[in-house]
């Protein structure tokens, strides 16, 4: 005959972000290590030489950290004012840094004193970089000029004075030693060729440009300024490709993940957003405690280093695969015994007559009780602590089933203090959950009906009842507030809708304003 139909546990849609490969990838980092610097961290740069140390520019110092050290490996302190833009050369031997006092200093990574000092700018230098041939240095300054310097002679090669505001970002081409790009507060990005007197390309970002980034192929250029991140196609003469507006404060820093598939942008709104570079959709998001000024990724995304305005440097290291495997292994340990069914892998011969065994359907514990109409026991099983805490939907589904059978009141009745407080605890935890409210409200009403005679006999239960009452009152207030907001929104929608007779309704109340 028809078998027992087990209780349906509704599957609720998972709220929040969906689990994608990206979220799994970007969540696979350990808890951040935090280091306090002396001032706002304005620049972070990774050395391309293993073991990939990184230079952190904050206040008047540049610290160099090892990949797993929390103490600086080396410190450069010979700055008279705030240092900016500490950058490694591609061979990892030299480090260049600008300074508020307009002097550009070049250090040997192993030494302490500046090897070369480039003087010529009249205001603070925020941008420094090595060209791809390693013999020149690009600098950009608040005196609106950008210059190229020769390292061996420590002489100025060329100076371009095309920007009309502070130059706050710039980058050199890694493929061509003569090409570099600067971004300025005059809203423009300029591409310069050292062989030519003037800039070869100008792009209008229409916001003060805070950061520029070249793709490894150097066909695309990314610029950040204001709340926008813009991508430009250099091969099409600087044609804008996309404009992203995902931050609500100024975007300060850009970075590419190691394989070039993902673009990261950090902003003063304390978020780091990760974009897919094929469709420029945000695939992941990191939150930080303070406004972010600088961001860098170690090669192979081994760590994410973020510098913030409050001087905190946050380093997240990727979880090593061994650790991950360990976790998985632990889960796999679960079944502690194995069952060997005799004759399970016996292959029937040709003439054997097969007697099929009826398939025994497995029923959950609460279903077994429900099948026997043991309603109180079924509710007890559903209220077991792990089920109650881990899977409240099961408990609620069993309650709903009991309610459907018209026996919920009987199941709730006749409980002692401990049992009742357990039940009330569950209600306090879940009654305001919109998924469970309809069922739990009936259950709560029934409990109050049943146990009102014994109120005041147990302090534990009384305390919980008071908590429940407070909770419900608060929830009612919330709902009222929400309805008010909804009404306000409806007014806005109604005014923004064109005055037509027809309308599509977002909510029923909007029609109040629709009737002519």
């Amino acid at each position: 005959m028809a078998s027992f139909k087990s209780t349906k546990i509704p599957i609720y849609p998972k709220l929040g972000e969906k689990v994608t490969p990206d979220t799994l990838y970007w969540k696979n980092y350990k808890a951040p290590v935090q280091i306090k610097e002396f001032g706002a961290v304005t620049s972070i740069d990774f050395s391309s030489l293993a073991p990939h140390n990184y230079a952190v520019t904050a206040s008047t110092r540049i610290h160099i950290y090892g990949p797993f050290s929390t103490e600086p490996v080396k410190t450069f302190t010979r700055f008279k004012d705030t240092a900016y833009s500490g950058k490694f050369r591609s061979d990892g031997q030299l480090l260049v840094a600008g300074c508020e006092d307009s002097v550009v200093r070049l250090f040997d990574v192993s030494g302490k004193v500046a090897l070369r000092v480039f003087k010529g700018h009249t205001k603070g230098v925020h941008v420094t970089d090595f060209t791809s041939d390693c013999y020149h240095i690009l600098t950009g300054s608040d005196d609106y000029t950008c210059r190229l310097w020769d390292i061996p002679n420590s002489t100025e090669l060329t100076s371009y004075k095309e920007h009309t505001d502070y130059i706050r970002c710039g980058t050199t081409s890694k493929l061509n030693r003569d090409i570099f790009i600067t971004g300025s507060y005059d809203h423009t990005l300029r591409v310069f060729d050292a062989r030519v007197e003037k800039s070869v390309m100008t792009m209008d970002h229409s916001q003060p440009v805070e950061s520029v980034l070249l793709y490894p192929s150097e066909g695309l250029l990314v610029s950040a300024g204001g709340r926008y991140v813009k991508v430009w196609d250099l091969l099409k003469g600087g044609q804008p490709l996309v404009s992203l507006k995902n931050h609500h404060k100024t975007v300060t820093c850009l970075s590419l993940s190691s394989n070039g598939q993902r673009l990261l942008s950090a902003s003063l709104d304390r978020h780091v957003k990760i974009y897919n570079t094929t469709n420029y959709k945000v695939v992941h998001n990191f939150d930080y405690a303070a406004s972010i000024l600088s961001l860098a990724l170690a090669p192979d995304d081994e760590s994410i280093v973020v510098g913030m305005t409050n001087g905190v440097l946050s380093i997240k290291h990727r979880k090593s695969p061994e650790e991950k495997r360990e976790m998985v292994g632990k889960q796999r340990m679960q079944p502690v015994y194995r069952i060997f069914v005799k004759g399970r892998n016996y292959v029937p011969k040709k003439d054997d007559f097969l007697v099929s065994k009826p398939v025994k359907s497995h029923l959950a514990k609460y279903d077994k009780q429900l099948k026997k109409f043991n309603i109180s026991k079924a509710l007890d099983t559903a209220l077991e602590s792990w089920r109650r805490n881990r899977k409240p939907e099961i408990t609620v589904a069993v309650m709903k089933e009991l309610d459907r059978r018209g026996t919920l009141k009987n199941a709730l009745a006749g409980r002692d203090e401990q049992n009742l407080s357990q039940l009330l605890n569950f209600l306090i935890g879940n009654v305001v959950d919109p998924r469970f409210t309809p069922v739990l409200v009936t259950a709560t009403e029934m409990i109050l009906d049943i146990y009102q005679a014994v109120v005041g006999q147990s302090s534990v239960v009384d305390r919980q009842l008071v908590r429940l009452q407070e909770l419900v009152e608060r929830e009612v207030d919330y709902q009222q507030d929400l309805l008010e907001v909804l009404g306000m929104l409806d007014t806005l929608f109604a005014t923004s809708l064109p005055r037509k007779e027809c309308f599509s309704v977002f909510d029923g109340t909007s029609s109040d304003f629709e009737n002519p």
Partner: protein
Amino acid sequence: MVVHAEIRMVHRGGSKINFREPVITHDSRFLLCAAGESVNVYSTSTEEYVHDLQGHTDLVTGVVLNPSNHLQVYSCSADGTVRLWDFTDAILIKTFIIGYPIYSIYVSEKHGGVVFLVVPMANYKSSELFQLVAVHLPHSGDQEVEARELSAVLCDVSHHPGAASFGREGEYIAAVKGLQLEVFFFKKQKSYRFSLKSGMKKGAKNAFTCVSCHPKEDCIATGHEDGKIRMWRNFNQKKEYTYSTLHWHHGAVNTLCFTPEGTNLLSGGIESVLVHWHYTQENQKDFLPRLGAAITHIAVSPDGSLFCTSHSDNKITIIQSCVKVSAVIQGLVKGDGVWTNLIIDPRSKALVLNGKPGHLQFYSLHHDKQLYNLDIVQQEYIHEEGLDQFEVVKAAFDARGDWLATVEERRKKGAELEINLKLWAYDELTQSFVLNTTVTAPHEDRITAMFFSPSPETTMLVTTSLDGHFKAWLLADHSDANAEGFWACDFVGGYHLLKPGCCSFSADGSLLSVGFQEVVTVWSPASWELLTTLSQPPGAIRDLCFGRLSCSKYLLGASTKNQLCCWNLLTCSLEWSTPMDVSLLQTDPLSENIAAFCSQSGSSDLFVFKPSEPRPLYSQKALCTGKVQHAVFAPRDQMLESCEERTQWLNRSQLYFLTQHMDLLTFSTKTEEDRLLASSKQLMVDDSVAVTPFYLLLGKHRGQQLEKQEALTNPMAERTQLPQGSIAIKELLHTPAHVLPSASFLCAMFVRSLLISSSSAREEKEHEEGEMEREKEEEDSEGEADPRLGESATWGHPEEFGAPALTKAQERELRKVRTFDHSWLSSLLDC
């Protein structure tokens, strides 16, 4: 109606087979049950319908086996007759005219030639008082016999058939009514009454519901409304009777039955559990749970090996040795109501409507048989009175039958409504529907209408609800990782907070009309733009439908204030309107025809018309009593070719409708009935064999073979007679093959023996006729793979020509022998 004599209304979907207790025949091969105005005979092993016993003119109210002849059965009916049948051949043997409507029938082996009937008290024909009477059935040769000699046995009995039972060897009869048990002893001609208090304890309902007597001992089991079973003993006196109580049922005990040996007592009730009490150890019991629906009757075969239970959902279950359900005979489930409309499944062409609680039943109209039940609610059904359970209230198929949408709702008293919208995808592999999406609470209030868009490009579902919105649901494109698509809401629409009551798609799916009380709104589903509004106040729109094919520019609406309006969608103006109280509009998907059911003074009228023509194609007044709420056009599998104007509308599809009394009716024409009759004659089978599909396949073939064999044995008999004369041939045949000389040698001899003298030429001519005959037979037998074939071919001639020496007299003798009838021999052989 004389004018429309060629169109008749016909019942479809069978009748209630659970009305009265079924009967299992002595050999346990057949099951007989009252079904409407006939008695149906089913095979117990294959659950197949064998034939029916037709003759009664009113509801059959009881079937019992004739205790003196186990191949005969008595049936009684509300038409006032008792009929005696031979059920194996469906022959009516006798009709006894009683003259009063009969409500149930009882017989006992001890009282041969007497039947006990429950009839209304003679002087209060209309009242609710019934009496049990004994009727001596007169012996007479006539087909119809009047049996007016009634002798009252008990007065004031219940008309319920389970409320009386014969005791041990027919010595007494026990009847219950209300709170009273009455036992009548035939020997003493004395009755004892035992009554219970109305409520011994608070809440106890002591009223009797049924009674059953132990076949071997003096013990009466009675069932009660509170679920108790009382076993009465020592009741042959007024005072010292005793009873013991058994209690398992929580609802009323509907039926009780002792097994023939009296070792077990079976009981059933609303719980749909067959409880099996052991008579000697009364606290021991077995259960057979989840039989599907409340048990109304239990019957046991005379040898006790088969039980059968009738259920409230028009089902009979046959149970083997109390543990295994071996067969289920399922009729069209006629529940408390049909909330879903009648729908035709585009794939199987089956009629779909509410079946068992929480199920949809698929009923094949062409085979008049339930195909399967689809579990919609997928929840354990609790068989208990007064519970609010989920019910399927709406269902819809898309145009190709790939998707099924169902709405189930459950309304609790004082609590909010629970609605679920479920979408089912057709799975080719399993040939059934698989749940794809469940939407909990798709609307805040009851859903009034639900339709799929008929356009082939998009699968779109529209639901309208009393919460003032209509919603469009679309299959979300599965661009991302999840391979299977799911349904999501695409658009929410409303019109001035009016409550939409009905909606309809145009035939190509390009327009959607939604009726908001008095206003009809027409939307474009592609852009969700409100195209126009039509209204014809006063009166809210009750039903809407678009014209089809050549009439697709018309939109019809039926309003509550006796108006049927037809709008032209090209001009957006009213084309025509007539004052009609239309309760239901139904379009024929294959033609322009629209059927409108009007309710007028308690009965329904039908009009079939084309929106473009002023005159209805067909109209029928007073179709049935009450309102017709559900109707559907079912496409025919074979088109009729009637060119008569009145029946033309039935050519492509057939109109089915459901009356208030849950009768499924349809219209049929004379030509169609003739055709059906012809096909049913073809399917006539030998009734002595249980009808199985296997039998249907093989039986016919075997029958033919038998005939052939018979045809074969006759000539064989002739032949075996004849060769006896020729000793040479006999010798030839009886000598083992390995000692015979070579075939070439024999052949020469043989052929020489065939050489005849010229004198016998004349005789040959005489023989010609017979020979022809023979040859024909030989041809016949050629089809058979018979090893004797070769021989018979060689025999034919020697027998005739191999004896040329015969004299004329002998010849004549021989001919005589041949013409002689040898069938006796064949019959001998058969034995």
